[in-house]
């Protein structure tokens, strides 16, 4: 059974049509990559999937449940890490985590001692103000907050943007273990390194999603070939966009 079933999502900003009928699905344990040019609507799609934005039309089902009927389904199923870190900057790392852990079955203290928070190195920063953290640490904290309720689906919007290699690798390793536990990940990125976890890839172009069958295998196995293929895809998008109507 699909854990995510997205059908014909449409979204416009005033007169600009961003999504014209995006559809895809994902099964438990799968990692879905979404690529596309800047401004093609990737973040809009992820915001709709996470309940941050309302679609004009279309249907979303999480394990057959419609989150639009009950908003709690979003919080039950989705952990969302947007590009901008959703953190309270004037509070400490610990206080931020307290809020996201307050209705979680997991113990914050346990996680700080030996769980995901220790894995991300956040234990050493527990009393630091979020405003004083580096970009990489903030991203780690954002992911940790998103995972506080142990959601079965994690949505990441370009998680590695402007992060150093060590941090990217750290996040990637964690995502691999998250996926290995049977959880689903949806990720948007422009980098093959980040997309190498993906089982299937989609291209978002002209408001619709097209599955990229040719990219799925090499992106996991051969990053060099995947880079070439991804560059070709972006070149063809650029050529199509520069062509006069």
């Amino acid at each position, binding site marked *: 059974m699909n854990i995510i079933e997205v059908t014909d999502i449409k979204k416009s900003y005033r007169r600009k049509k961003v999504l014209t009928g995006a559809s895809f699905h994902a099964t438990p344990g799968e990692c879905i990559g979404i690529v596309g040019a800047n401004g093609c609507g990737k973040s809009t799609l992820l*915001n709709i999937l*996470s*309940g*941050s*934005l309302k679609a004009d039309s279309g249907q979303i089902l999480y394990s057959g449940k419609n989150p639009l009927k009950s*908003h*709690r389904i*979003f*919080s039950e199923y*989705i952990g*969302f890490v*947007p*590009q*901008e*870190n*959703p*953190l*309270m*900057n*004037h*509070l400490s790392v610990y*206080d931020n985590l*307290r*809020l*996201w852990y*307050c*209705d979680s079955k997991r113990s914050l203290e346990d996680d700080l001692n030996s769980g995901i928070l220790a894995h991300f190195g956040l234990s050493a920063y527990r009393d630091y103000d979020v405003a004083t953290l580096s970009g990489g640490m903030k991203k780690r904290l954002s992911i940790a*907050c998103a995972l506080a309720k142990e959601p079965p689906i994690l949505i990441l919007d370009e998680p590695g943007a402007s992060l150093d290699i060590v941090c990217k690798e750290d996040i990637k390793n964690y995502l691999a273990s998250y996926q290995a536990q049977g959880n689903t990940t949806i990720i948007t990125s422009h980098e093959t390194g980040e997309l190498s976890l993906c089982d299937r890839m989609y291209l978002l172009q002209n408001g619709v999603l097209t599955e990229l069958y040719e990219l799925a295998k090499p992106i996991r196995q051969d990053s060099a070939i995947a880079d070439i293929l991804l560059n070709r895809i972006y070149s063809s998008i650029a050529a199509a966009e520069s062509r006069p109507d």
Partner: protein
Amino acid sequence: MKKSLLLFYLRVKSAFLSLPKILAATAAFSIIVTLIGFAGTKLLYSDDGMQPMDVALVLPDGSGMYTRAAFAFINEIDTVKSHCSFREMSETDAFDGLKSGNIDAIIFVPDNFIEHILNGTNTPAEVILPKSGKTSSSPLFRELINAGVGDLAIAQAGIYAVDDVCVRHGLRSEISKAELYLNEKYLSYALNRTVYFEKETVTSTGSLTLVQFYIRTAIVLLLMFSSISCMHLLFREGRCLNASFSRKGISTPVVLLSKTIGVSVMFFALSSVLILFCAIISGFSDRFTLILQQVSSGLGITEFILMFVAIFTTFSVAQTILGISDNISADVVLLFLLTLIMMFLSGALIPSAFLPSVIQKISIFMPTTWILNLWGNILSGTFDAVNVIANIAVCCVCTALQALLVKINS
């Protein structure tokens, strides 16, 4: 509920963590506010508008030293000195001065003025006032002088007549008793203005003293300006964090309220500490106690509750203004300007009595009017449920507006 309470707690904590920064900025703003208050008081109640009347004194030729000494003595009496300044001059100079506006009134002293007072003849002095100018702007003033002079003459004539009757009928021993009785009657009926007029104190500052009026203005201005130093605590969250809160089941109004509560609790605690500090000092200094009595008639539990409501409403208004645009600099400028405009329209900088009636009517739509009224209640130790309800209504409108702005911006 647990999440919302935790969020409230975290906001309060966050506000207290920012305390040193906020205190420094508040101290800076308090200087600005003090300057505004000082300038306002000077503007309205400077000595310029209360200069004593220049009164020309025209003495008859050959008037004795007693007449001059009597007027010199009257001129030195404090209550007279603050209202009148007598200057001896010739009749021609006095009339020229009255025409040119240099003189506000002329008193023609009759011949043998002092002698006539002593022997009971009582020839009245003639007072001449100009048709226009500060002394004759009200015909009432002229009427009062005439009535006073007339009453005094009648009283004296009555007393002297009774004296004559007593002397004629050999009742000299009864004179002092009779004079005392007549004096009392004349003073209580003939000279007592309250028989004719109902006394009601009307001031431009309403039920507040001038000190309370400007303290109230200073408090609201200081709180509004202090919200600039708390901007990081009051400015609306980013779209992503708002969406995260929403996903977590914390609604936008709760998120917005938590911010206002955090800052309000901190300022309430600060104010309470300040009040406690003042109370302790007043235990050691009588002079300080007198100063405090001028500011407030005493604070009880009701006043503390009203104080929290007033602080909360102030920050609700400030937070709404700060949420109008996404540009922090624009919001600061907007907050500064709107605060001054609202305070002016509410009659906080210049009392409403001095403002045009249109502005007086507009003032009821200003949130600051109701906040100021509540602070007025706190300082004067009065309670007006209308002001409390109005403040709560202002908070509700502000939160709804902020939620709408968040929705529009997302």
